[in-house]
């Protein structure tokens, strides 16, 4: 039998089997190289894939950012997830276009630049200097290796190079600066005449049909929104805290058990003098350095100043200029050998040479601040607050849980919960989604719950609501009365409507009168054509910032065409208060070009022009690249499934 197997195993069947078996092994894991069936992709930009995961992360960030910016106004219900997602994707695509262009064009900042950026990044700094461990830990946290992070950083820095090159090289020509200055500094000689709205108001009775028509076409204006009256219970940790009592014994106990917190350990003012020993130095080289430093030590002991010698001889660039001073340190900050020596010295004594991985140090302690303990009386208040807060918090969570349970188990009333937990049921007036008092109800989350079907229609208690996470406040509410959207009756708003119609009529009449007067002036009449009781205002030359004339007049005056020599330019406008005006421009004076500043390229005008155009140059370039990029957006089901 074995013989048969052996014979067969030599033949082609065996080979065929071996080949068949080896195929899956050879191809195992290939999908991760080919991207087949890999993670879902949100879009591709010139072949660069933007993973759905990255988009999710960025959307999440955008939402947090929104919450931060809006604070209490943030309402998850009003944020359109689809839209936010689309916007974030647009930004992401734009960024990718830029980064891809950087790569394609071959922009590449130098290693030093990348290094400098990392070294100066405050998030990697510990104890005042760059810390490699912190750096690596933070990267690991983000799932990055240093090499990967450095490559990403390099790409970003290279991108800013492009941005800076395009934006900062923007210029403003002499002609452009002068034109801006002439226009901005322009003054116009104007006069104007006001045709008051009131003069065109009539008191004759209004047609009934017109009032009805107005009412019918403006129903939305006369609506009262959907409203509810609420009963509610509020649980508030601050109120709980007021009732909590903490005994003196407990405070003492806390003080005793947490002693370490109140101890300020011994601190020492230290200076040092460093002679470096290179990393790869052999014993002889180290010995030479040791001898040098011993010589220096001898000089100090012979009376020379430590400070002066450190200034001239120390090879620690950070401290040498300060006479070797390292400031005030606590034990445990410096490398162990240094630490031990520094904390064993008496004030004014100079240490033996201390060997660390930097080299040899001489250390001098200039001052000792002994360890101190804060007395109980000084910290009593903060201990009291701490304990009260802790207890109030745990009491809050405990009560909140019971409140949730009870209101859920007896959904038809708040009474049982109020009794059991010693809370008072509060009653609100009519409130709508947009308008609610007191403020605890005003939170969108709370109002959303009040208008939720279970609560509004089925009359159940709401869930336990926590309007603001960090305030430790909980609310349970129920609807006791509800009224639908209603439109005020015509009789109730009749006055309002007639006033509106009369206003509108007066406006039209005043405007028509202004147009007629303007026409007469254009035909050569002077202001007397307006009638004896109306007199023109003659402010003379005004500039664009003038506050001497109403904004509407100024705006109209500067929009009018420049009059021909000796001619006039006439226009009309409606002011904010409804009065109509006729405006006449008789002269235009351009802003002065100062001969001195005209040649210097750095005027305010030049600054504005270069700023605006420079920014735009970069945005346009990016838009241009984007228009030529091959961009595919994948529409996936996950977009709808987002919470």
């Amino acid at each position, binding site marked *: 039998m074995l013989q048969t197997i052996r014979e067969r195993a030599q033949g082609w069947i065996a080979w065929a089997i071996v080949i068949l078996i080896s195929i899956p092994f050879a191809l195992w894991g290939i999908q991760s190289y080919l991207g087949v069936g890999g993670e879902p992709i949100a879009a591709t930009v010139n072949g660069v894939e933007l993973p759905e995961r990255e988009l999710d992360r960025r959307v999440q960030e955008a939402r947090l950012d929104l919450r931060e910016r809006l604070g209490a106004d943030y309402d998850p219900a009003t944020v359109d997830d689809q839209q936010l997602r689309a916007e974030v994707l647009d930004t992401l695509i734009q960024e990718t276009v830029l980064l891809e262009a950087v790569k394609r064009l071959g922009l590449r900042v130098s290693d030093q*630049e990348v290094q400098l950026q990392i070294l100066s990044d405050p998030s990697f700094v510990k104890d005042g200097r760059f810390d490699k461990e912190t750096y690596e830990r933070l990267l690991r946290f983000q799932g990055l290796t240093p090499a990967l992070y450095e490559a990403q950083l390099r790409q970003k820095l290279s991108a800013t190079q492009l941005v800076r090159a*395009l934006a900062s090289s923007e210029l403003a020509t002499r002609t452009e600066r002068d034109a801006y200055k002439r226009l901005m500094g322009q003054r116009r000689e104007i006069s104007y005449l006001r045709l008051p709205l009131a003069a065109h108001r009539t008191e004759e009775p209004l047609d009934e049909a017109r009032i009805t028509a107005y009412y019918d076409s403006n129903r939305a204006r006369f609506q009262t929104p959907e409203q509810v009256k609420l009963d509610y219970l509020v649980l508030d940790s601050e109120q709980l805290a007021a009732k909590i009592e903490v005994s003196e014994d407990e405070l003492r106990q806390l003080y005793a058990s947490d002693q370490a917190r109140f101890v300020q350990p011994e601190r020492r003012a230290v200076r040092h003098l460093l002679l470096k020993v290179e990393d790869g130095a052999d014993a002889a080289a180290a010995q030479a350095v040791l001898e040098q430093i011993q010589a220096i030590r001898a000089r100090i002991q012979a009376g020379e100043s430590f400070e002066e010698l450190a200034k001239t001889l120390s090879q620690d660039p950070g401290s040498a200029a300060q006479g070797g001073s390292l400031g005030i340190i606590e034990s445990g900050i410096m490398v162990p050998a240094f630490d031990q020596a520094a904390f064993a010295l008496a004030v004014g004594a100079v240490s033996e040479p201390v060997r660390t991985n930097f080299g040899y140090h001489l250390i001098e302690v200039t001052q000792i601040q002994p360890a101190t303990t804060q007395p109980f009386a000084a910290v009593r208040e903060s201990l009291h607050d701490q304990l009260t807060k802790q207890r109030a918090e745990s009491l809050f969570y405990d009560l909140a849980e019971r409140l949730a349970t009870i209101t859920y188990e007896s959904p038809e009333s708040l009474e049982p919960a109020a009794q059991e937990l010693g809370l008072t049921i509060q009653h609100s007036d009519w409130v709508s989604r947009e308008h609610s008092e007191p403020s605890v109800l005003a939170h969108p989350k709370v109002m959303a719950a009040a208008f939720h079907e279970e609560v509004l229609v089925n009359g159940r208690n709401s869930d336990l609501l926590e309007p603001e996470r960090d305030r430790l406040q909980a609310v349970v509410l129920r609807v006791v009365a509800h009224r639908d959207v209603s439109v005020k009756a015509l009789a109730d708003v009749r006055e309002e409507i007639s006033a509106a119609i009369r206003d509108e009529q007066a406006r039209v009449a005043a405007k028509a009168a202004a147009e007629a007067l303007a026409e007469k002036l254009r035909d050569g009449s002077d202001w007397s054509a307006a009638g004896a009781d109306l007199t023109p205002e003659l402010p003379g030359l005004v500039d664009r910032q003038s506050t001497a004339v109403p904004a509407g007049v100024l705006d109209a005056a500067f929009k009018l065409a420049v009059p021909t020599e000796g001619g006039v330019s006439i226009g009309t406008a409606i002011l904010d208060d409804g009065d109509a005006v006729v405006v006449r421009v008789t002269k235009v004076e351009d802003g002065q070009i100062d001969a001195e500043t005209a040649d210097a390229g750095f005027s305010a005008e030049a600054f504005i*022009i270069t700023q605006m155009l420079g920014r735009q140059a970069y945005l346009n370039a990016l838009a241009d690249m984007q228009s030529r990029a091959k961009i595919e957006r994948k529409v996936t089901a996950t977009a709808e499934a987002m919470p």
Partner: protein
Amino acid sequence: MSYETDDEKVEAIKTWWKQNGLSILAGALVGLGGIWGWRLWLNYQDSTAMHASTVFEQLMLDAGDHKTDAVTQQAATLHDDFAATPYAALGALVAAKALHEAGQHDAALTALQQAIDTAPDPAIAHVAALRLARLQLAAQQLDAAAKTLAQYDVSPAFAAEFAAVRGDLATVRGDLDAARAAYQRAIELGSSLSSLIRLKLDNLPAAG
């Protein structure tokens, strides 16, 4: 193929190796050499780009300090020694501003033309061309400006800013209708200087 003994197998492998061994070794060597050469090439490119990048950063610094001579020199270095990198064009772009501010208008025009010619991407050429047209206009070279506009106003992304320059050109030429149309177009397309362009538009004499 079937072999009677293990010795035969060894023999067969040996013969096969004698026949093919050399070409396999040669193939592997060529392959490895190719990979090595490619990496060397990439490294060379990287280090050239980094070198150019350093020169460019210095140029930006000098431009900020208004050291026009140093800027010109670095721009020349980028143009002569690093023509294959994008820094040649970017350097010319920054140099143009420095030269313009130092009053060397012809040199600024040349620098912008150089930026257009060496631009590694049309977007950069468009930025440079827009500035070139504005400088030509300021230097009263109206025909040259018109030519630059006609040649480079091709991308919708830059259309608004180009329209604004067209408006300025038409105003200088006294063609007020064309100026009005161009300014209006610039505002409609959302030029970054819309409020200034609105002032220019309002300030044109009444339509005849």
